[in-house]
């Protein structure tokens, strides 16, 4: 059971990383980031269960909170990106001129 959870967490992290690297739609990149955070949470929870501790679960509580705040900020940045370049594809956001 413990090895299943850890392998699943590593697999979800790898999928999230591949999503961020390969996809060219900004909102799907943000979704990949959320999946990476979720995979790290799963690993923490798996070890907290294996070692019969509670500290891992408290860390997951804080990580979920910070992930919520970060996704709100990420979507605000997406709004600004759309206003500036009139598109959300990463190919259009090719200049640093603001």
């Amino acid at each position, binding site marked *: *059971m*413990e*090895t*299943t*959870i*850890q*392998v*699943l*967490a*590593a697999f*979800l*992290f*790898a*999928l999230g*990383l*591949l999503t961020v*690297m*390969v*996809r*060219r739609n900004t*909102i*799907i990149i*943000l*979704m*990949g980031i*959320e*999946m990476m955070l*979720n995979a790290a*949470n799963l*690993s923490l*929870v*798996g070890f*907290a*269960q294996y*070692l*019969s*501790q*509670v*500290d891992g*679960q*408290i860390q997951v*509580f*804080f990580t*979920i*909170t*910070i*992930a*919520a*705040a970060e*996704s*709100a*900020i990420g*979507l*605000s*940045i997406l*709004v*600004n990106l*759309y206003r500036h370049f009139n598109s*959300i*594809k990463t190919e259009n956001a090719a200049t640093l001129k603001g």
Partner: protein
Amino acid sequence: MDNLDFLNCVITILGIFAGLSGLVLLFSKQPLTCALGLLGVLIFTAGIYGMIGEHFIATIQLVVYAGAIMVLFIFSIMLFNIKHDGEKFDWKSPFFVVSLLLVGVIFTLLARTVLQSFDMPVIESQRGIFTRSMIAELGGNSQVLAHSLFTQHFISFEAISLALLIALVGAVVLAKRKFD
């Protein structure tokens, strides 16, 4: 635990479905299908949290992650009217193959390091006292978590509330229309 095989079986099934939902997120062309794939990952991992006895974290995951963050994403897809990408992604291009190889290396190293750590004595020495019977005796998972959060980790708790306030102000400032 007396029904350990059943637990293992259910967690494996939930894990397979979570992996399949992750693949839907990676390979789908419509953004809304990707959002549903992410929602599937979040719900199946909440199921895994519930099965291993961490009921508070499972509830928080469903309420915050699957309930608030996914709603934000789906609202953004609706408001920006994001349709599917017109051109096909070239799955045979060298860029994708190299990315796949690199991510495969990262996955192998991560999984191997974590699985090797199960035998180390330094990990065994960190074993705590909160087994499932102890948690049930102390009044449940929420009670144990709340006691630990408000006595041992209360500074982090106050700092998190401050961080949420800053994120709220930041999101409003970043998204408001600039009047020149």
